[in-house]
């Protein structure tokens, strides 16, 4: 198609060359800015910055033993604490988000009152514990290592009480051999439960002797404050010698049972996650090295310790067991 040119253009109608160039530069600048802003927006949308941690209420604690006993029993490790900002902004809590940095934002405003934990099953005295009753158990500080199956670790000053103290109250019967735990199921409060990323509700389990071990606690706080929602408020399990996912968050139900209960991650990938899931540098995982770990806040790797460094306290629980089979 031929273009028709007008040959009757007056000189005064022709845009000045300088103006023409300026306009062109202006358009270029505008295009650059607009596209740059769009790219920035897109990147920020896909890679959001972490949210500010909320400040919680203080919790009163008691000290049960002298300092050197605390170290010997594994109640306190003498390692640098992971900063509160990191503990409260880097969370695996799929009920809110599968992105560890987004959990804090998604969990903001999570309502934890009223809250009750129903303890039952093979027990003589089943009971529903209100949160305030649970907070009446003597709260202790426990400084534990936390080793995630993904290859990172933290040192966290928890506040809580031994799980055994709760179990003693309900008196497990002689048939009870395992303890099963369940997280709250409420898609209105835990929005990611609307997706099918895991089989909800999240469930976990321990053998009864593991659950009765003094290192196994129910945590209600960290850094002297009430647990932030993203860390499993208002009450969660902490079993420091097992991979982090065993330490189930926002617990509403505890059941004593005779047979090994199903657990969420081993149902998801039986070849990758076992029922025991003890921290074990000798059992390899196809996704993450279990021989070494990254301590959050450090830039060199460190070797992962058997039972996460709690071998002296817990190895006897597994005497005679092949931990490569029962991983």
């Amino acid at each position, binding site marked *: 198609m031929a273009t028709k040119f007008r040959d009757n253009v007056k000189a005064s109608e022709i845009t000045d060359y300088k103006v023409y160039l300026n306009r062109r530069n202006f358009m270029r600048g505008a295009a650059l800015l607009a596209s740059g802003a769009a790219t920035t927006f897109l990147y920020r949308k896909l890679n959001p910055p972490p949210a500010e941690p909320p400040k919680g209420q203080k919790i009163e604690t008691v000290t049960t033993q002298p300092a050197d006993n605390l170290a010997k029993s594994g109640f306190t490790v003498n390692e640098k604490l992971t900063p509160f900002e990191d503990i409260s902004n880097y969370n695996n809590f799929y009920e809110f988000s599968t992105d*560890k940095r987004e959990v804090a934002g998604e969990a903001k405003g999570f309502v934890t009152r009223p809250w009750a934990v129903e303890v039952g099953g093979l027990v003589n005295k089943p009971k529903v514990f209100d949160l305030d009753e649970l907070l009446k158990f003597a709260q202790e500080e426990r400084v534990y290592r936390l080793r995630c199956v993904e290859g*990172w670790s933290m040192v966290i000053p928890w506040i809580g009480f031994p799980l055994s103290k709760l179990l003693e109250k309900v008196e497990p019967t002689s048939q009870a051999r395992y303890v099963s735990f369940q997280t709250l199921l409420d898609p209105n409060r835990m929005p990611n439960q609307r997706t099918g990323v895991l089989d909800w509700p999240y469930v976990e389990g321990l053998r009864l002797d593991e659950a009765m071990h003094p290192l196994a606690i129910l945590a209600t706080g960290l850094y002297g404050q009430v647990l932030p929602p993203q860390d499993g408020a208002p009450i969660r399990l902490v079993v420091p010698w097992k991979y982090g996912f065993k330490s189930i968050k926002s617990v509403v139900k505890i059941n004593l049972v005779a047979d090994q209960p199903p657990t969420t991650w081993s149902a998801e990938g039986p070849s990758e996650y076992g029922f025991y899931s003890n921290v074990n540098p000798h059992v390899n995982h196809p*996704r993450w090295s279990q021989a070494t770990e990254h301590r959050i806040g450090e830039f060199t790797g460190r070797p992962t310790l058997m039972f996460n460094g709690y071998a002296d306290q817990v190895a006897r629980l597994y005497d005679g067991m092949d931990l490569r089979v029962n991983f």
Partner: protein
Amino acid sequence: MKDTRFAKVLIFINCLIPLALLLWDTYRKQVGANPLEFVTRTTGMLTIVFLLLSLTVTPLRRITGANWLVKFRRMLGLYAFFYGFLHLMTYVSFDRFFNLKSIPGDVAQRPFIAIGMLSFFLMVPVAITSTNKMVKRLGGKRWNRLHKLTYLVGVGGVLHYWMLVKSDTRIPLTFGFVLLVLLGYRLVMKYTPPSEKRVTPSLFSQR
């Protein structure tokens, strides 16, 4: 789009923005508790994004008839290589601490790393032969055949990501779906007889 030179500058700068923001966030300590994981994930995702963008050029060109789009293909591909290189270096430096001896064992135990590395090394010959000189030296046909390696790199990259994630496979599956569409389009075009291909444009030639 006659102003190709400017358009190239525009795209060049936009492709660098993610890196600039990543560096800025790292400098301002806005990359969360595990900067290593964050940087690794971000550079990895960017690699796949740019791979997919470079693979989008040809179908988009065919469909819209905007042939000038091909002028940006090389740059997008080289950015995929660039971000892939940063991704690999993050792993070598921060994950392995330049302990090169520990890499073979790590790769052998974790198939997803092996696939990722293989995909990166497949990009090397493609990146090296991306210059106009190389097209001439190899000849268009051979050059084209060599650059079909990109399809394999795309599959490898998505597979690498998919194997890594624990259970939330939404993002890798999205990438996989996009890749499937892009490669599927090529397959369909290949097996569509040329006569039929010309049927569609005739819609416009009927006056």
